[in-house]
């Protein structure tokens, strides 16, 4: 018998008057998996998250958390949610807020202190949340989502308003959570972040799922800039028939990082003068533009 997915959505539909926000949306998030949702503004990404948690009532379809109804208290004990631009009682300090959530979860308040340290909130935690910057609100929102050490974490634009250090912290937290088997659903506009941490990506537009893309399973590309591309073009074309050489850049699909040194060695052996070499991702941006923006 296989375990139930951490999150399973089937045929979710939600309309606001004549506006169809989510239409027949189905997806799953398995334990130990990070799934990203990508789409333009108004694509229904946030609504999808809210429907999955039953913060909104679906017009049709249903969501299950660990095989349970989203309002089941046993399911909620295992869920963390950080909304975009979370709002907290303005006169309450960050620490008092986290301690309130500790009490609601019936866990020791020391967990709040630990997360305050982990997310770099030591100074703001003593202040009322009404005085927080956008980035501090985001970090506090993440801290409250992580309090119960959730098995399912839903994050809505978690890196919005964060400085690079904050983004790196969140990335580290997500990778650590995945390592211990948590399922994560990440709604972010940052393609590079999604590409970096996600295992799968859901492309959404007009409330509909356009395509699911397997980031880990897809091919990556070696991209090498050559100073003398015209001089070595013929030799490279003969040695790498699958590769392309355009505008001084040679590109070829590789299975992973381990294949990169061999490509570089071969190019040098063919007489190529290498200026720059990099592994490019699964072309998420191209895929995004193609699927979501409709560009060829």
């Amino acid at each position, binding site marked *: 018998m296989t375990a139930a997915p951490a999150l399973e959505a089937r045929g979710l539909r939600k309309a606001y008057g004549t506006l169809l926000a989510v239409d027949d949306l189905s997806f799953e998030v398995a334990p130990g998996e990070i799934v990203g949702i990508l789409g333009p503004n108004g694509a229904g990404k946030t609504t999808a998250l*809210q429907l999955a948690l039953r*913060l909104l009532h679906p017009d049709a379809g249903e969501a299950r958390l660990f095989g349970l109804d989203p309002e089941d*208290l046993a399911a909620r004990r295992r*869920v963390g*949610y950080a909304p975009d631009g979370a*709002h907290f009682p303005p006169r*309450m300090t960050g620490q008092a807020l986290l301690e*309130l959530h500790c009490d*609601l979860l019936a866990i020791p308040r020391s967990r709040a202190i630990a997360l305050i340290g982990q997310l770099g909130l030591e100074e703001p935690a003593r202040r009322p949340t009404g005085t927080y910057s956008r980035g501090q609100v985001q970090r506090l929102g993440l801290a409250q989502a992580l309090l119960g050490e959730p098995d399912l974490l839903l994050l809505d634009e978690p890196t919005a308003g964060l400085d690079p250090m904050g983004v790196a912290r969140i990335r580290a937290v997500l990778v650590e959570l995945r390592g211990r088997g948590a399922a994560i659903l990440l709604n972010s506009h940052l393609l590079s972040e999604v590409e970096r941490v996600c295992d799968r990506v859901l492309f959404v537009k007009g409330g509909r799922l356009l395509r699911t893309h397997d980031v880990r399973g897809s091919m990556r590309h070696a991209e090498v800039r050559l100073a003398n591309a015209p001089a070595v073009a013929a030799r490279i074309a003969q040695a790498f028939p699958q590769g392309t050489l355009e505008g001084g850049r040679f590109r070829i699909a590789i299975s992973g990082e381990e294949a990169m040194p061999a490509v570089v060695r071969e190019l040098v052996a063919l007489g190529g003068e290498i200026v720059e070499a990099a592994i490019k991702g699964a072309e998420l941006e191209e895929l995004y533009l193609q699927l979501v923006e409709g560009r060829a």
Partner: protein
Amino acid sequence: MNRLFSWPIARQTARERGLAPPALAITLVLVLLAAGGRPSPGTWSGGASAFWLALLVLVLGAGLLSSEVESGHAQLVLLRPITRAAWVGGRLFGSALVVCLAGAIAWAVGLVAAGARGGFDGSPAWFTLLPIGLLPHLGWLATLAAISAVTRGWSNAALLVALRFGWFFGRNALPLALPRWNLGPWLLAADRYFGPQDAVDAEGIVPSLLFWDVLWFLGAWLLAVLLFNQRELARRRP
């Protein structure tokens, strides 16, 4: 975790609402009024103290549920292992706690001041009258919670004030405007069921009114839970 109300929510609500400047200011006025007067069975059902206590209830109950939903904090809290009923109960209980505390403080100050002036006989009846005198106010607080389950922002308080004034004018003006219909006795009878009633009169406690007040409070609480169960929690983006 209590199924009827969540104690952490009640504590947070009491702190949030009770320490808000308007609530503190009204409590201070109540204390000053009590210090200058003498507590009586009708302290909370008529006169200046009753007006200020009603105002405190209005301030505490304004947007009691809706403000948390609209701010987005309710959705985070209600993703915890806590039922909606326990959350509603916690919000109501926390606000009720502030009303009771403010009333008790003012009452105690009034007793001490009256004692110092030699105007208090020390009868235990004064102490039993306190919670009964506060009960109608708690009934109105529960009514505000029920309205807040379906309205936006602080409009529940405005709606309740409008309803009470509307009823007051209707009760007094309709018999005069339509004398042939003889509405006076009917409206007077109906008035006994329009909201919680003062269960303490000059002769003491009126059990039927006391029962009505308890019923009203519990009914409004139940209605608040039932209505809030239908409400969506997600905050709409502007």
